[in-house]
């Protein structure tokens, strides 16, 4: 697969207000395939943790009979982690609290659909 579409998606996501980093992550091994993060954001750590969280959510959802997972949103006191993916690949956004998470959610789900 050509990496250019991924870069365009990551770039578009990273331009949103409050976004600290955008990544394309392999859920299986927790490694970043591509990333655009601000200075001070450890892409490897974000990738590993987002992949682990998504994997856990996916397995729990399947076990509870809810089927596949399309979107995961983790809110914290000072920011958010958002993830959407297909098969083994996830688009991940880490942001400050002031980010427009509704808009990011829509764009992430749309971007994940394009991973087919």
């Amino acid at each position, binding site marked *: 697969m050509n990496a250019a579409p991924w870069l365009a998606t990551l770039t578009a996501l990273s331009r949103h207000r409050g976004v600290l980093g955008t990544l394309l992550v392999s859920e299986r091994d927790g490694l970043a395939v591509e990333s655009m993060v601000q200075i001070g954001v450890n892409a490897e750590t974000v990738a590993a943790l987002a992949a682990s969280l998504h994997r856990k959510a996916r397995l729990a959802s399947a076990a*509870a009979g809810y089927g596949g997972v399309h979107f995961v949103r983790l*809110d914290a006191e000072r920011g958010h982690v958002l993830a959407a993916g297909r098969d083994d690949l996830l688009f991940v956004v880490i942001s400050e609290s002031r980010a427009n998470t509704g808009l990011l959610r829509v764009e992430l789900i749309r971007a994940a659909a394009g991973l087919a």
Partner: protein
Amino acid sequence: MSEEIRRLSDVLVRDPASRAFVPLADALRRAGDLATAERIAVRGLERHPYDADAHDTLARIHADRGDLDRAADEWSMALRLDPRLTSAQKGLGFIDYRRGMLESAERWLGAAAEHDDDPSIARALATISRARATVNGANGHRDEGAPRPPVDTDTVTGSVTDVAAVNVAAPSPVAIPVVASPPAVPDAPSVAPVGAGAQARQLFAPLMGNEALTALLLDSDGLVLAGAYVDGDGRDIAEEVGAELAGVSDEAARSMRHLGLGAWTSLQVEADAAIVAMTPAPHGALLLVAAARETPVGLVRVILGRALAVAREWLARFA
């Protein structure tokens, strides 16, 4: 400050990317400065998230604090990074032992014994074997289905860290209380008035209206405290759903510790058939709201907030 701590601190100051944070955090832990030890370990893990020894050290710090959930979390991560890390196997073995999961404890220590000939592991295994015999004799069935002994540090001599370091100060079989009551959940209400069960199951019903929504309040083990979850056949599957989803919140908490975004406040999962939202509740509990996929996401979050207010009030009455 000991000479070792001073020396390792100097190394870390000169080279912040150094792995000296691992022995430094451990030295601080052994010196009893758990807060500084944790800070050093967490900072180091931000640079070295795949360092199994660092996760092992952070697990020991949590264990020394008595936070067995976090310790188990870190030891599990350490084992994912290094499946043959015997200290993590021993740590998980001891935690399972403390939780009364003797068969699982035996499996972990048995795995550790395959790569580590420390005689104290064999002694610990013998102790567990005797304890299992005692429990099985008392209950007339296998231990995994038996009630768990409460986590009570007074029943065990030696710290988890001691066991992880293979100074297995394993308790004698008689130190394992075999209780007939439900397991104690630290800091969570475990006793409700007689007749409160039906009220607890209906706790969130007024919030649900006509929407295809359900809410559950789970304790730190994923056991249902309040709420109900009825499937299409009319069967209450709250215990099953709660057990499956509670583990996700552990993952959320772990992620937040490493990302520096503060404590997690809510988690939302959108799946094929449902939207699930969860949030931490007082006393280590977890509140979970599940809705049909077609439910507006914003509505699910509003219901979650209202259910949390109800849960807080309800927990305050029993805490």
